[in-house]
């Protein structure tokens, strides 16, 4: 096969993997501190994308902004809206349902996601149709032989990898990260040691949902189009990645994200005629992997005492 084309596939796979990983890390964070699955996460991605879209559009209408400044406005809007919706859902829905069965929380947050999605569809003018996302990154194409890639895509990919790294640093090096890890390990002992449980949980929700908002912005910049239901599938894939990698670890969802994107890309490359089956194969791999590793590739460190 043509090496340029192969490189193209590799790049696309990396890009998808980065986005999946960023979404999956959120699931893992929430599960770590509260043992819940917050399924509205995918729709928070959409909220982030639409906030960036709206903010950038509004600023462009008010004043002509240079590219980087408009991007900064979009970025702040995406992060802010993501964090806000995450904190609201956490405060009103997830914390009160803390002692309810897991399925109830799952269902409640799925419905919260539906509310977000429908709010976008009904609230944004002509929200049912796809929207063109403005090109906020510098144009231009890098070429190497038959391999060509937009500068904007490279920036998105590097930024995504940097974000994954930064999240790792936040978790391992900061005070918030320390309290997140403490609560994840043992909520009561953490509280005895003076860690505020509610504040830590909401902080985690803000952090994870900021990542989702950022993923929304990245998707918009990469595909140049956003849609009110773009988050549904992404949420499920992110959840799948987090579970396959191992809920409750940080490296697990990252592995899961790249794995899922890798399988999808591999099917497209190896079986070009059946590329329509790439989702079928990817989900089959997920099911098989869970069958083989029932608590994820990076297993939960727990043993049951009888």
């Amino acid at each position, binding site marked *: 096969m043509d090496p340029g084309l192969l490189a193209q596939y590799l790049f696309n796979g990396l890009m998808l993997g980065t986005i999946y990983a960023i979404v999956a890390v959120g699931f893992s964070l929430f*599960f770590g501190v509260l043992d819940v*699955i917050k399924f509205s996460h995918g729709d928070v991605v959409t909220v982030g994308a639409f906030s960036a879209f709206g903010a950038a559009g509004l600023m462009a209408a008010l004043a002509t902004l240079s590219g980087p400044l408009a991007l900064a406005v979009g970025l702040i809007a995406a992060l802010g809206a993501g964090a806000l919706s995450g904190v609201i859902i956490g405060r009103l*829905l997830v914390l*009160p*349902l803390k002692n*309810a*069965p*897991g*399925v*109830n929380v*799952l*269902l*409640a947050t*799925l*419905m*919260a996601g*539906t*509310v977000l999605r*429908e*709010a976008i569809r*009904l609230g944004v003018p002509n929200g049912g149709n796809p929207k063109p996302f403005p090109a906020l990154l510098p144009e231009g194409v890098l070429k190497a032989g038959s391999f060509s890639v937009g500068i904007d895509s490279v920036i998105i990919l590097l930024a995504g990898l940097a974000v994954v790294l930064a999240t790792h640093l936040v978790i391992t090096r900061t005070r918030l990260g320390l309290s997140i890890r403490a609560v994840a390990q043992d909520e009561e002992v953490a509280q005895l040691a003076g860690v505020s449980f509610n504040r830590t949980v909401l902080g985690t929700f803000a952090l994870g949902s900021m990542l989702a908002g950022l993923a929304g912005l990245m998707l918009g910049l990469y595909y140049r189009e956003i849609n009110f239901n773009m988050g*549904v599938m992404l949420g*499920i894939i992110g*959840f*799948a990645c987090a*579970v396959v990698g191992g*809920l409750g670890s940080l490296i697990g969802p990252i592995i899961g994200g790249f794995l899922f994107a890798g399988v999808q890309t591999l099917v497209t490359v190896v079986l070009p005629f059946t590329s*329509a*089956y790439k*989702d*079928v194969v990817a*989900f*089959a791999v*997920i*099911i*098989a992997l*869970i*069958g083989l590793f*029932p*608590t*994820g590739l990076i297993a939960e460190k727990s043993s*049951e005492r*009888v």
Partner: protein
Amino acid sequence: MSMADLAPSVPAQTARSGGLARLAVAATVALLFAGGGFLLHAEQQGQVIALLAAFVAVFALAEKVPVGRRIVGLCRAHPGTVNLTAAVSILAIAAALREEHYTLLMMATVALFATAAAGLTLQMAFAGVPNFAGAAFFAVGAYVAALLGNTGIPHLLVLLIAGLAAAVLGLVLLLPVLRTRGHYAALVTIAFGLLLRAFLEVNDVLGGPQGMKVKSFSLFGLDFSRMTEIGPYDVSFYLPYALASCALFGLAFFLVRRLETSFVGVALDAVRSDEVAASVFGLSIARWKATAFLLGNAMIGVAGALYGMMNGFVNPNSANFGDSLIMLSILVLGGLGNLWGAVVAAVVILVIPEKLQAIQEFRLVIFALLVIAILRFRPSGLMPRAARDFSALVKGGAK
């Protein structure tokens, strides 16, 4: 003491209570069904809202007022009377609305979704096996009906084969489902639902995105879609479907209730509530979970097959995640493990959005908010499952 002795029996004093109690129970149930029938048929927004308000009031009364609580207790003590009255009421409603296409279609839909919910009840409420792919197994049943409807196999047998096919397909998931718990098991079924839908969409043999036509149901040479009169009465061709669907639900109801009150139900409850303790008592966790999962999928598949035959077509969209969620919502809203609750929830979720056309655009939001509110403020559902009553055992002592 064997497991069979542990199954709850009817408390001794209720056997003595008079016919008056039965009459009260029958009247209450008949009244509720009459209200439900009016709701199905009501077309004006005002009527619908008034009926809904009446239902909310009835529920509130049943909880807050001593008389209401007493009647609820009586209903629980006389399940036979409740079920008989329900069957008679359904027949009466069907007879009264025999010419109304749309109303009967909705009645059949509610009954079939409630049947699917009965299958999910077996899986989730009894055995604790999450199934987020209800619509997928439902669609499997419909696809089997589409494939076998024209082959001359009697359609009752087709329904059975559809159930069997859904169970066999569920077999693929059995290993991952048994090896995992909680969220991990949930993901297995979610992934399966998405996989199946993606597969149906790209597979041309099964009609691709357009799906397939399904031949209408015929029973002993009687084609349901051609039936326009019974004796001297003109009837909608949805009437036989509505009756068949209700009969199917009745069968599922009977089966699930029998399992629940037998040693199987006790074993499943034990497996769900504490795996370790259950295995200490010699119950095979894998065996009971597998039984519930396969049997539940079979029930969903049968319901799906009849649903496909009624609609006349099936496409990959019927296997979508949203529909699986609707089935789950029916289960959770009604109260996990209570099949009458599932019927009420099926009406709430499937019928009310159709009735309130004014809110058509907002119906998804309202539906989502409603589910959230119930989960938040009434987590055990509208009609929670009654706790097992072992008082007769305690009073009578071990025989």
